[in-house]
């Protein structure tokens, strides 16, 4: 993505002598780092139906180091699995790769079941740990143990039990067994987290944000220390906020990393929230991972012809940007504006935002106040460095354009 962004920082467009009350047409450079053809197949209820047009700008600290967006790196030192009361009664096999593994167990409600989480809790005092043929209980098994919802913020214990395997028990294969029978058909989610493990699954999407019509890419690696390991197998999926699941075809490259590409041609999510990449590797010790990725439906797109005008000294500059929309909704345009310090260095000057309800073709107008631009002593010429178009009614970043557009009087 960084390489792409560099190629998208196109040449300067100087505006010779824009006079007061003058209006000039500007053109957005070709190329976008986030854009696709308009699509209106979104069934999600509107998240925001505010109708009032609003705009606001504020000064930015000139010494701020603003960075291009980069995809987040996710990593996992653990795994989760679904099991049953019957398996826990018999003894559930758990593989670990480091001492002091943390366990979290919560019962799973059946569809439509309304049992209180407390009534389904597994009491750590009723669990034992088997290492080979040796049984350990209480503190001999678990150095720390707690259960139940202690506090709204103590999420680990919200409807769950949590334990730390006594580090003296070492690592390797264990059996976790209930000393008193649990309901055989009850399903349980068991998580194993190994903070001290050197076995790590890492994954990174190709971008921090996508729009439908683009192709999502993913790179993942299972490693121990600095060495890439070969997992017995790996599965991956893209999970939609509305529960749909799209399998990823993972392929190993020459360096041993897993790679996948998935065209985002599916219909948009009908529920708000982020999409998630899910990975699972199997082997001596499994690893699972989930990581969020923003995927929006391209419900709007910026037009190419911009108009810049300044009415009078001290009045705001107005940058009018045409917008085509596929769906009625509230859309926001933001711009990062830079100015020059006394040494002639480009510094962040202001962030400007404007939003309005649009249907079909419309425009958004950014108001750039001279008092804001000059607040921290920065001087003209100013330059637009980034435009972002957000669908506020469906909460999606639908277009992002890096540019270097000079605003000169």
């Amino acid at each position: 993505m960084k390489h792409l962004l560099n190629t998208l920082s196109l040449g300067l467009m100087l505006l010779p002598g824009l006079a007061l009350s003058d209006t000039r047409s500007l053109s957005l450079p070709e190329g976008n780092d986030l854009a696709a053809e308009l699509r209106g197949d979104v069934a999600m209820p509107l998240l925001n139906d505010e109708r009032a047009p609003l705009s606001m700008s504020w000064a930015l600290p000139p010494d701020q180091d603003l960075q291009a967006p980069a995809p987040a790196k996710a990593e996992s030192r653990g795994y989760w699995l679904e099991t049953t009361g019957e398996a826990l009664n018999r003894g559930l096999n758990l593989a670990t790769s480091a001492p002091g593994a943390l366990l979290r167990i919560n019962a799973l409600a059946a569809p439509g079941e309304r049992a209180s989480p407390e009534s389904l809790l597994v009491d750590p005092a009723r669990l034992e740990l088997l290492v080979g043929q040796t049984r350990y209980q209480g503190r001999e098994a678990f150095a720390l143990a707690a259960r139940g919802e202690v506090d709204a913020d103590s999420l680990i214990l919200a409807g769950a039990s949590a334990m730390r395997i006594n580090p003296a028990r070492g690592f390797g294969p264990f059996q976790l067994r209930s000393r008193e029978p649990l309901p055989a058909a009850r399903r349980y989610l068991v998580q194993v987290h190994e903070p001290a493990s050197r076995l790590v699954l890492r994954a990174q999407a190709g971008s921090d944000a996508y729009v439908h019509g683009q192709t999502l890419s993913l790179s993942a690696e299972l490693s121990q220390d600095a060495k890439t390991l070969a997992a017995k197998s790996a599965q991956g999926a893209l999970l939609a906020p509305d529960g749909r699941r799209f399998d990823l075809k993972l392929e190993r490259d020459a360096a041993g990393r897993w790679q996948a590409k998935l065209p985002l041609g599916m219909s948009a999510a009908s529920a708000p929230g982020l999409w998630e990449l899910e990975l699972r590797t199997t082997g001596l010790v499994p690893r699972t991972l989930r990581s969020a990725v923003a995927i929006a439906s391209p419900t709007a797109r910026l037009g190419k012809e911009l108009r810049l005008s300044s009415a009078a000294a001290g009045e705001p500059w107005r940058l009018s940007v045409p917008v085509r929309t596929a769906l009625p909704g509230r859309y926001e345009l933001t711009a990062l504006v830079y100015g020059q310090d006394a040494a002639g260095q480009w510094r962040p000057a202001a962030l400007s935002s404007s939003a309005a309800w649009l249907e079909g073709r419309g425009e958004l107008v950014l108001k750039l106040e001279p008092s804001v631009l000059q607040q921290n002593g920065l001087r003209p010429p100013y330059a637009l460095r980034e435009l972002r178009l957000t669908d506020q009614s469906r909460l999606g970043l639908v277009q992002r354009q890096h540019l270097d557009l000079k605003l000169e009087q």
Partner: protein
Amino acid sequence: MKLTKKSAALALTGMLMPLFAGTAQAAVTGVAFVHGTGDHRGDAVDYWGQDFIDSVRSGLPNSGNYTVIRCDFSQYMWDSGASGCLAQQLTDFINTKGITDLVVQTHSNGGNVMRWILSNPTWDSRYPNIIAKIRWVNALAPSSLGTPLADATMNGTIFEQSLGWLLGYKSDAVRQQQQSWMASYNANNLYGTGGRPALPKGFWNVVGTDVETAIWDGDSYCGGYHLNLGLEITQAWLDSCSDGFLNCSSQSGAGTTWFSDKSRMAGGEPLSHNQSRKKCFGLDTILRDDL
């Protein structure tokens, strides 16, 4: 540090600060308490403790100019039940009391909901006036970068559109506070984190760095011993520097760190995640003096 906060506010908002308008009409200062994750429409005062609220608001010229926000923060931060509710209650408070200088105290996920408003001024017609009135936000243990505990809570859960949450914890606010989710929201929908544009008003973090649960130590009982005990095991999922719910890196992940607990608390005590919203170790006094 106080001077630094004021200087930063002056630089950020220029002549808009009623705080410094000595010759202009006197500012009407108010304070708002914004709770964290969960539905606190019925128990927001208990969330903070009346003694904490009373101690902080006693630093106001008019101690009646305060509000305790009561909203449902089990929703996503952008939801009308979360930021919409917060915006309405802040607007009502500003209008009813004639507030021109608002200090906001947030705890935990309340910082994210407040940051949503600060980051999205054109989302809602109530937002610009709220932002204009805010002097600064004191973010007590904000979950700005999420928490591994939310990851652990949501891992393995499955959402079925026809049935809702089949498995696991059923809170969108918890889902939102997963680390990768907050990374995405911070990159695309929120300001104030590293490499992103600054917020329009100061967002000053108070960072809790540890949890003490010694049964013989009375300090462990401030905020409720059993609550702090619960945080001991949750700490095992976190970095060595945490308040039992959030890594220090998350608490200092947006805005500016005002102070870490041990540098300012009486006796150099740490503030667990439960204690950073209670009358513990002089926190109330620091917030009172900040008004």
